[in-house]
């Protein structure tokens, strides 16, 4: 499967230094890449005439608490032309940021805002990086593993802003 995957072959040829790891599970190919080259790699996967990954089905963040790098941004790509899917991962440290891909896929705008909202991953050059699900003025990032599920103010009475 890995050998026959065209996207993987092309990626390895084009970015030999940036492809860090390849995993295959039940026919799903996952490529871990360096976060510095994420925009170039996505640009290539998007615009290469043989690949044409025009559809970003999902973009999400993962918190690997107490591991380094702490966060991971996962891109789920789909090529409508080839009926092929590809998962691209990039690690992001706690104090680091990653470049946005919202210029390639418009949908990435809201996905990145969601990852920022719930995990606090910072996306550089994002046109409008603010909270999308939680309300304005919320402090903290609730999907982080070290965030208490009940929130910090659980014992205090809740008073809504008028």
């Amino acid at each position, binding site marked *: 499967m890995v050998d026959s995957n065209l996207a993987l072959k092309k990626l390895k040829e084009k970015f030999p230094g940036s492809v860090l790891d390849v995993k295959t599970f039940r026919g799903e190919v996952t490529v871990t890449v360096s976060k510095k080259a994420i925009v170039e790699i996505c640009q290539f996967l998007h615009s290469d005439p043989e690949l044409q990954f025009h559809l970003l089905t999902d973009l999400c963040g993962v918190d690997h608490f107490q591991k380094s790098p702490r966060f991971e941004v996962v891109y789920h790509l789909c090529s409508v032309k080839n009926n092929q899917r590809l998962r691209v991962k990039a690690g992001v440290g706690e104090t680091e940021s990653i470049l946005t891909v919202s210029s390639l896929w418009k949908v990435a705008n809201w996905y990145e805002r969601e990852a920022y909202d719930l995990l606090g991953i910072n996306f550089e050059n994002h046109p409008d990086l603010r909270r999308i699900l*939680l*309300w304005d003025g919320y402090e903290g990032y*609730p999907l982080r593993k070290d*965030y*208490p*599920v*009940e*929130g*910090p103010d*659980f014992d205090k*009475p*809740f*008073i*809504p*802003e*008028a």
Partner: protein
Amino acid sequence: MGIEEYVGKTPLMPALDWVVNWGRKYSIWPVTFGLACCALEMMAAAAATWDISRFGSEVFRPSPRQADLMIVAGTLTKKMAPMVKRIYDQMPEPKWVIAYGACACSGGVFKTYSVVQGVDQILPVDIYVPGCPPRPEGLLAALVELQKKIGKESLLDRKDVRSTLELK
């Protein structure tokens, strides 16, 4: 101002209470308002099988300004709470609140950062209906209980409640 200034002085007060309460309790108009899955049970209660109109509450008002009852049906998130409070504030007195379902009563299974742990933190709740979700019969039972409660109210009491609210 209004009828409240004179009602305390008249010996006909109990009779007046009875008439006013009779009118109020058989025409409780709920505001059209649902938050989560419990709202579907509320809609079922309004539909033909259970038929909430048997108790005088068939007129679900789309405007809070025409409603007497707020059925808080579903999970109240902290993001939604200001809007719910605002809708409640827009309802004219007298008004009542039913907390419908486990989430509205106490937060239910959502002991989390984003959910209000019971609507009684922001609204004065009259009747609690537990269940996840409660059957439409539960809502009808709550409505009957509310009618009993309204039947025991006095105009004078309501005036007290109102003045304390305004003093706040």
